[in-house]
């Protein structure tokens, strides 16, 4: 399969064109086409591991084509263990998100599905690009459909949330672009060639001061997206107002773009700046603040969805903590935790969405004792909560544990604060579960809520399976990430004096 990656990347785009070709009134056909294409993309992406060689260093299945030769930008995509996991996650989550919107968005379904498909291509492009220019293009392309998904199909404050999300992330990304350009010129100065090729740019040696400036330019782009602590204010608004599919995609995939950016670009391209003690301390401090702050805010939430949104701040704090532990277990834990968070948050948001469709409320106090009327829902929700809280046997545990062991190796206090965050996390999640599911049925209105439908069960099924599978047998994941992570760690160590 010579062009498998391109196929995966552009299948959703083909779906987008197909959807646009169908008249608006035929919304059933639109729905079917969109789901078909996203499923097809997922199936195609399942072929990637068959051609992927685990443990081989560098990028694989690289496709290179001339695109804008005058500025040295190429169509250059490739994959390594880290992006492999994220690509598989993206295609799966996109397909599920598409499917979970089966019953809504009929009125303006065409635009909705078109935007979802565009988003899928954008996210896949971000994880596949090895050319900085191409990467930036996909990075920004992702924002456009998200704006419309939140803005048109979201909650009451959707217009505010959508533009806030858009402007925040764009502001970050233009500075990221300036950072890329600085790198580009530094490379051209040293080698006399203009290129955005990641594998080439890595050879550039930078003046320490410039390297730090570039680091912070990139940091702005990635940190807004993650979001790291002071840049997180767009996240609760966007999540709460977004429709279910939007929240799922936002939490599971879009946030990962930020952490992926750190791992793929900041660390390998700017190793000295990334190892600079004060920068590492700053990054870790921000991560720890995010962990604790996110958890504390969760404890005070009354809105079900907002709580889950803030839990992402906390969980992503673990991911960035793992990254800036700058060692093998921290980094691989971080990557695996990104996948895990994708799975567990997707589950949580899907379940909130299912409840909201039935009850049209997200106030935690409106529920209570749901386990009696919706046993299947309660079970899946329990799995999601335990997975998110990091209980053993479930996927969350693996990631958290690896990250904390990585952090512990560097600084015990970091690990200590992390553990506190973990405990707080368990507290707010279990409390949420208790308030909504356990006890007697609080309101009569909830008595006749129907349990999960077949479609809903089928949607959550793969995620539940994955949560258990990763929790019990995480080895394939570790194997996939170990080689690329090792390369990064070696690169970092090679510049350490």
């Amino acid at each position, binding site marked *: 399969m010579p062009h498998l990656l391109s196929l995966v990347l552009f299948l959703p785009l083909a779906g987008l064109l197909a959807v646009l070709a169908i008249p*608006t009134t035929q919304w059933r056909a639109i729905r079917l086409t969109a789901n078909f294409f996203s499923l097809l993309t997922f199936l195609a992406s399942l072929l990637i591991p068959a051609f992927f060689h685990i443990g081989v260093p560098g990028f694989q299945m690289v496709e290179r084509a001339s*695109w*804008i*030769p*005058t*500025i040295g930008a190429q169509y250059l995509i490739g994959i390594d263990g880290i992006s492999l996991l994220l690509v598989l996650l993206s295609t799966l989550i996109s397909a599920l998100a598409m499917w979970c919107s089966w019953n809504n968005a009929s009125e*303006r379904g065409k*635009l909705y599905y078109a935007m979802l498909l565009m988003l899928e291509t954008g996210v896949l492009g971000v994880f596949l690009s090895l050319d900085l220019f191409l990467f*930036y*293009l996909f990075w*920004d*392309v992702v*924002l*456009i459909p998200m*704006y*419309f998904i939140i*803005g*048109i199909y979201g909650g009451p404050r*959707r*217009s505010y949330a*959508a*533009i806030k999300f*858009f*402007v925040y992330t*764009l*502001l970050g990304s*233009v*500075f990221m*672009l*300036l950072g890329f*350009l*600085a790198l580009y*010129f530094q490379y051209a100065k040293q080698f006399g060639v203009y290129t955005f090729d990641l594998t080439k740019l890595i050879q550039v040696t930078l003046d320490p001061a410039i390297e730090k400036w570039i680091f912070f330019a990139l940091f702005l782009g990635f940190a807004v997206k993650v979001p790291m602590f002071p840049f997180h204010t767009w996240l609760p608004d966007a999540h709460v107002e977004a429709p279910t599919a939007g929240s799922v995609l936002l939490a599971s995939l879009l946030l990962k773009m930020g952490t992926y950016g750190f791992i793929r670009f900041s660390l390998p391209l700017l190793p000295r700046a990334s190892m600079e003690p004060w920068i590492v301390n700053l990054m870790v401090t921000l991560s720890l603040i995010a962990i604790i702050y996110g958890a504390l805010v969760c404890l005070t939430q009354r809105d079900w969805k907002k709580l889950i949104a803030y839990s992402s701040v906390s969980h992503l704090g673990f991911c960035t903590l793992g990254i800036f532990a700058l060692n093998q277990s921290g980094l691989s834990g971080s990557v695996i935790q990104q996948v895990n968070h994708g799975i567990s948050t997707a589950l949580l948001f899907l379940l909130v969405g299912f409840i909201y469709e039935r009850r049209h409320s997200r106030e935690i106090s409106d529920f209570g004792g749901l386990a009696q009327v919706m046993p299947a829902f309660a079970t899946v929700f329990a799995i999601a909560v335990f997975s998110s809280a990091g209980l053993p046997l479930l996927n969350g545990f693996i990631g958290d544990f690896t990250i904390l062991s990585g952090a512990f190796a560097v600084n015990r206090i970091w690990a200590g604060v992390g553990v506190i965050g973990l405990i707080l996390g368990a507290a707010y999640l279990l409390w949420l579960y208790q308030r909504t599911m356990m006890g007697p049925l609080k309101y009569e209105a909830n008595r006749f809520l129907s349990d999960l439908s077949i479609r809903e069960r089928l949607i959550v099924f793969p995620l539940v399976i994955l949560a258990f599978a990763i929790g019990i047998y995480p080895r394939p994941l570790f194997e996939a990430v170990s080689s690329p992570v090792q390369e990064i760690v070696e690169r970092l160590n090679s510049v350490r004096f």
Partner: protein
Amino acid sequence: MAPFSYNATDHLALLPPILMALFACAIMLLDVLSPSAESSRRGTVFFSLLGMTFVAYSLALQIRAVTHAPGFAIPAFQGSLIIDALSLFTNGLVWFSTVILLLCAYRYLEIAHEHRSEFYALAFFAECGMYFMAGAVDLIALFVGLETSALAFYILVGFTRANRQSNEAALKYLLLGAMASGFVAYGFSVLYGISGSTQLSEVSKAVVRRGSADPFVILAVVTIAVGLLFKIAGVPFHTWAPDAYDGAPTPVTAHIAVASKVAGFAVLIRLLLGSLASARPIWAPILAVTAVASLTVGSIAALTQDRLKRFFAYSSIAHAGYILLGFLADSDDGRRGILIYVFIYALMNLGAFAFLISLRRPGSAADRHTPGDLIGDLRGLSKRHPLQAALFVVLLLSLSGLPPTAGFLAKYFIFIALINTGHITLAVIAAAYVAVSLYFYFRLVREMYLLEPRPAEQHTVEPLASSLGIRLALGTTAGLTLLIGLYPEPLLRLAFLVTGGVP
């Protein structure tokens, strides 16, 4: 005194403006001769499009000749006109803008009850003037070209003479524009004084000889820079722009925003980066202040507008700020950035204005708000006209500089030029304003997509006043905007070719 001669190259250089002037006269004659008013109207449109075809052919002849010429330039008329890459680039864009004007004007003028052949004749006169702005290398030819186009524009702005706003816009444009030309002329007179010649090549030598600290050079460069910044509406010389844009018939607004600005930038390039390049220390600070002020005022004022054309006036002021930043980067990258930006600016603004024209619906001319004037008129448009709305979104994305549209590349090259020449602060400012511009452009998207139509308007599903010409214009520009964003290589090649040729 050299005896007068007229040879083949002179003829080639003068062919396009001769055609323009001839067709302008012919159009007026046609109006007198044609039997009925209706046939006269249609005839005028087709005849003017025919004229544009001839002009295109003559420009194509020039392109063919230039590619064989040494140094990609053909001087004509003893060095008062030149055919080179810059002039052809500018004339191409002006031509395109004029065609869009002709395509869109018909419907608009019909609605305003002012569909007269004079409009088309004036459009040709304006183009004729801009031809000389692009190609003149003699102070007098340049000045007369500048004035011819400006004068035609004053009249076009006030063309809907029954409309007070149009009158006032024209008058204000004329008063400030005439003052600006006065400054330019004053600067030219000083340049003539120090060089003893009106030819730019001689002027350039004199300026180099005197250096950039010479008082006369300072006087000339400052007055010329101020005058030209008036023409392209850089802050603080922009006060005429929102009123002129708002009051003018929308097709004319598009033409001022695009053709007149493109030609203005061609003059700026020819003068500041050409003949007065050695005076960079004088004009660079003026341009830097104007650029940053334009970005700021343009972006902030656009946030508060509720009238569409004023909104686009401020938006184009902000764009002028970006283009001016390109002048500050003293490198080929900078020159290329300017050209690429100008090209893409022309494309996306023409599209945006074509869309605005299609919003226009019949209403009383005395009304302050004819339908289609306010940003609120866009509300719920995505439901009524999904395709037009989508195309407009593409253009807005491009205007705010987001990939994968052409607008991103325009800003990208300005960033590149700034970073490469060490203007990091300016690059950061420019980058920050991208986010601001996103915010204000997406106010329009919000109106179209996010907000429900007002209850009163839900019943009146009026068709857009869209003619074939308008649809053609909107489709072409939006399509090209997207295409260039995805595959910009041909445009970049063109820009490289042109920067090779600027004297």
